[in-house]
Structure formats: structure tokens, C-alpha cells
């Protein structure tokens, strides 16, 4: 039973990281219908910025909680800035182009950012300092769940709640929902669509950066290639839940996290990804629009 619980919570942790990345995918997709392949790279850049800032602050001799907070803030700011710039440079000129062209532009952007970090930093795995403190009150449960995992779960929950509130009640959130429903109509009623799209990229990139710093300090290693795998997984999660839907992305991420965790625990870690993708294929065969996606009849 303990083993089951450990796998369950491990899957939940994994799922929350996927969820933090998947949110960016699903929000961008909801608004401009673009699969932003470079989104995983934004997450990777967040992790790298976190590592660099943490490194500088360690040399300056701050304590680890302050480092974690400052590194996270820096990662969020920089990832958001990269997301914003990426949209302005590569995606805005392609807004009226065929959708596949934008997709190829995104793949090119992803290659560019990977190699940019590879050249400017290193191709080796960098050890990431373990910044999340070990809590003493967690000791009795240490065989099921670690402190780092608790921090990840709580942070994710807080981010989700804040994001939901933002989208439900704030002015920009309402503008986002309006733009996602009908961009032209939103423009007609005075929504600044350019600003909304920029905001979407900024928010999505910020949450991905939080995920990047958390998972990097949990696993303890990063390199320039982590974004690609995580990006594909998160995208899978977003589609699993129904792309364009925010609760769907979260649910899809948890389902994916559990599948991987249980497949690793009970079958074999070699086939972890095979199970993840097989689950995706199965779910999409029976629910072609994802778990929470709306199956809308196509009108003629």
C-alpha cells in the first residue's frame, strides 16, 4: 500500500510539473491556435536562469530560502521576457499565414533556442543546487513523499488557484476568454488583441519557468535538451485533457503523471514513455477531443 501511495504521489508531483508547462501550451493554443513548439525551450531557459542566478547568489552567500525565491523570481521574469520577445519576432508576423508555416517557425525557434543555450552555456549536464529545504515535520512520511515534492505540489496548487482567479475575474482574464472565443468579435468590442496575446505568452512562460526551477532543484541536473522532452510530454498532457481548456490541461497532466509513475513502478522504466503515448492514442480514439474537450458538431 505504501508503495502504491508513493507511486501515486510521485505521479502527482510529476503531473504538477507537466501541468505548469501544459498551461502555456493550452493557453496559447486557445487564443491563436498555434502549437508553440518552442514552449519547452522557455521552460529550459527558466531552469537555466534559475541556476545562474542561484549560482551568483550562492557565491554572494545568501541563505537557501532567499536564493530559491530570488532565483524563481528571476526565472519567471526572464522566461516571460523570452516568451514575449518570441511572439513579437516569430509569431506575430505569421498570424495571418497558413497554420503550418507558423508551426515550422515554432520548430525553428525551438532549434534556435536550444543551440543558443548550448553555445552560450554548455552541452554537459549542469548540477543544479538543491534549494528546497528538508522539513523536519515531514520525516515520518519520508518513505512516501519528500519535502521537495510537497513544495512542488503546494506551489502548483497556488499557481493554479491564482491563474484561475486571474482568468475568471480580472479584466485581462475576461479579455483572454473573449479573444479565445472569437478574436474578431473581441476586437470589435474594443479588446486590444495584441496585448492579450502578449499577456498570454507572458503568463504561460512564467508558469513554465516556475516548473523549470522546481523540477531542476528536485532532480538536481539540467542541460539544454530538457525542454524538448518536457515540452512534448506537456503538449501530450494538454491534448489529453482537451487542448484549449485550462482545467483539461491540469487533469491531462495528472493522468499522464500517474500513468508514467505506475508504469515505471509496476512494469518497467524502459517503457514509461510507450505507456504515456499509448494512453494518449487510446483516449483520443474514444474521445477525439480529449477528456474535457468539447465535442462540437461541425456546422456546414
Amino acid at each position: 500500500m505504501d508503495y502504491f501511495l508513493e507511486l501515486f504521489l510521485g505521479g502527482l508531483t510529476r503531473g504538477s510539473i507537466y501541468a505548469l508547462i501544459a498551461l502555456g501550451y493550452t493557453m496559447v493554443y486557445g487564443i491563436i491556435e498555434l502549437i508553440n513548439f518552442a514552449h519547452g525551450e522557455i521552460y529550459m531557459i527558466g531552469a537555466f536562469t534559475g541556476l545562474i542566478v542561484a549560482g551568483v547568489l550562492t557565491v554572494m552567500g545568501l541563505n537557501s530560502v532567499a536564493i530559491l525565491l530570488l532565483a524563481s523570481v528571476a526565472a519567471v521574469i526572464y522566461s516571460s521576457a523570452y516568451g514575449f520577445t518570441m511572439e513579437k519576432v516569430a509569431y506575430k508576423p505569421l498570424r495571418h499565414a497558413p497554420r503550418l508555416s507558423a508551426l515550422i517557425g515554432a520548430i525553428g525557434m525551438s532549434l534556435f533556442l536550444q543551440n543558443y543555450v548550448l553555445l552560450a552555456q554548455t552541452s554537459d549536464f549542469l548540477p543544479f543546487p538543491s534549494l528546497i529545504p528538508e522539513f523536519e515535520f515531514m520525516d515520518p512520511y519520508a518513505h512516501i513523499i519528500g519535502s521537495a515534492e510537497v513544495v512542488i505540489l503546494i506551489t502548483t496548487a497556488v499557481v493554479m488557484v491564482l491563474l484561475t482567479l486571474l482568468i475568471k475575474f480580472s479584466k485581462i482574464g475576461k479579455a483572454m476568454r473573449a479573444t479565445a472565443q472569437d478574436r474578431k468579435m473581441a476586437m470589435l468590442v474594443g479588446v486590444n488583441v495584441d496585448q492579450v496575446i502578449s499577456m498570454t505568452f507572458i503568463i504561460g512562460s512564467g508558469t513554465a519557468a516556475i516548473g523549470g526551477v522546481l523540477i531542476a532543484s528536485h532532480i538536481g541536473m539540467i542541460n539544454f535538451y530538457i525542454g524538448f522532452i518536457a515540452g512534448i510530454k506537456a503538449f501530450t498532457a494538454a491534448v489529453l485533457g482537451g487542448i484549449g481548456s485550462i482545467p483539461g490541461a491540469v487533469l491531462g497532466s495528472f493522468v499522464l503523471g500517474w500513468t508514467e509513475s505506475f508504469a515505471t513502478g509496476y512494469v518497467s522504466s524502459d517503457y514509461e514513455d510507450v505507456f504515456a503515448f499509448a494512453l494518449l492514442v487510446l483516449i483520443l480514439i474514444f474521445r477525439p477531443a480529449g477528456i474535457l474537450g468539447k465535442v462540437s458538431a461541425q456546422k456546414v
Partner: protein
Amino acid sequence: MITLSEIKKSLLISIWFIFLTFPIMVIRVDTVENVIEWRWNNMILVGVGSFLLSFLWRHLMGRKEAGRKQAESDEAEKTPLVQRILGERRFYLPALIAVSIFVILFPFLFSTYQVNIMTTALIYVILGLGLNIVVGLAGLLDLGYVAFYAVGAYSYALLNFHYGLGFWTVLPVGAILAALAGILLGFPVLRLRGDYLAIVTLGFGEIIRLILENYNEFSFGPSGIANIPRPGFFGVDMSLSAAIIYIYFLMIGLTLFTVFVVNRLQNSRIGRAWVALREDEIACQAMGIDKTKTKLTAFALGATWAGMGGVIFAAKTTFINPASFTFLESAIILSIVVLGGMGSIVGVIMGALVLILLPEYLREFGEYRMLFFGAAMVIIMVFRPQGLIGKARRTYKFEGDLKSEA
């Protein structure tokens, strides 16, 4: 003219990029030793570079805008220049002759290294043309195309290893196996549309690669299969360079065959059904086109070429392992199709040559080549979203007298 406000704008852009690249370009930390290296010269490089590039970018954007306005004001839709040249016989014939002479002389004029690269590029031409059937004609976004390539390559390697079958026997077998894999993938995804289809095909490609990587008893895992024989020529023993030239001509032959078949397919009943399906699925069904059959043939025929390409790839490199069949490979093949211009045969050929030869000749830039490659993909898409050679839409003109008809 460069005005003051433009300089100010570029200055702001350059400051923004200095800020943006500051942690990653300037600072390098060693987390083990806790040593920080500051590389201030990179900051100057980024600042000056982005300042100058922003002028170029603005200039090109301005030209693109002007071009679009002009195109809007012109009444008649202009066919692309290359399309027009190809349409005229007096340009078409000499060009064809020149290209054929070059193709025949190529292996004798250049080193075997160059010939090898060209053969690789030709394999990608075939892959591009095959994927073009699925994506360009039928409009089904396939991100796992490399799976069929892997099926072809592994069927040659394994059939040769276990049963000693030769290249010429396996070429059709590999093609058929790939086509079957195409149908296998096609069945479950028939109901899916657009991006859902994209992610399922991506997942399918990854599943195939992971199985090849982990199922050691079947595929020898990550270490791959070595000593795959090169194609034979009626049992004649060939030196290495002769074998390379032989494969080159083999590829030329196969490319011509592919171009011929794809060209015939485009104007056939099934080819038009694909285009109709791409444009409007419901209208297409209303016209009595069998959706299931049409989609499955697109997957099967597209996969066939990937299978053949795979068999030749295995025979050419004599060694394969799962690392050759990653998602990046699918992305490159898809880029060939989109970059060249979807649905256009000449476009796909050009796209393959540019995308495969460019990184090869960029080798002089060493480690920077993938950086330039990614940037080039973004820039081409931003400035020519329809691809290098856009497909001219088939248009029908009414030639009779309007009044007498009415």
C-alpha cells in the same frame, strides 16, 4: 533613409536584447566549485548585433508589407516566377537538359564525400515527396512520419540479418511493410482532426522508436545493427567509391520514379479526392467520396516512400540505430515540405536540397550551424510563409461567351 526615431527604436531594441541575453550570454557559473565567469564582451556583441539587425529586419518587413499591398492592388493573381518559367517550353527544355547533364556528371566531377551528401539529400527528396502526399495533398498533419522510415530501414537490416535477403528483394518488401504500418496508424486516427492527429502521429513515431530502443531481442537496442550490405549489381564486386556512385544513380532513378508517380497521382481521381478532402471534409463526403478509403490510401502511399527511403538509407550507411529516427527527423522532413511550398513537387525538391545541403555546407561554421539552421527556418517562414515555391492553385477559366450561355 535612416531617421532619428528609427535609431532610437533600434537602440531600445538593442538594450532589450542585452537585458534578455544577460544571464545566459554573460554569466557562466560553475555550481560545483562556485566560480563565476563574467563574459562582458558577449554583451557588447549582442548589443551591436541586435542594433544592426533591427535595421535590416525593419527594412525587410517594410518590403514585405509593400509587396503584399501591391499584390492586393493587382487584379489578376500572379503565378509565382518559377511556376511561370516551368510552364514555358522554351525555358523548360534547356533547363531540363542542363540539369540532367549536371546530374549525370556530378559523381565524376566531385569527391565521393559530395556524392554521399547528395545521395542523402535525394533520400530526403523522396521522403519529402512521400510526406507531401499526406500533408500537402490530403492535409493530414503527420508528425511521426519518421516511423515509416524506421520500418523500412529495420526491415532491410533485420531481414538481411536473419534470412540473408538482398537489397532488391527487401526494397518492395520494406515498402509494403511501411504501407501496412501506415494503414495500422491510419485506422485509429481516422476520426481525429488537425492537431489531435498531429500529436497522435507524433506519439506513434515515438512509440516505434522507443520499442526499437528497448526491445533488445528484436532490434538489438541502442547499439543498432551494423554490417548491412550495400546493394548489389548482378553480383559484381564493387570498390567503396564505385558503390557510392552506384547508390547515387540508384537514388536518381528512384527520385525520377517518385516524381513521375506523384505527378500522376496528383491529377488522378484519388489525388483530386485528397485535395477535396483537405479543403472540406463534409462537402467531400456529400460528393460521394469514401473518406475512410481516401485517408487510408494517403497514409499508405505516403508511408510507402518512407519505407523505400528507409531501405536505401540502411543500405547506404550500412549501420542503423534508433537514434536516426527521432522526432527531429520528422520535423526536418515536415520542414522540407512546408519550406519548399506545400503540394508543389519542385518546391519539395528545392526544400530538401536547401535543408539538407545547407547544414552540410554550414559545417565550416562548426557548432554554430544548428543555430543558423533554426534561425533560417524562422526567417524563411516569417518572410515567405507560403514556402519557397508556392503552389499555384488550379484555376478553371470560363472561355465561352457569357451572354449566350445565360
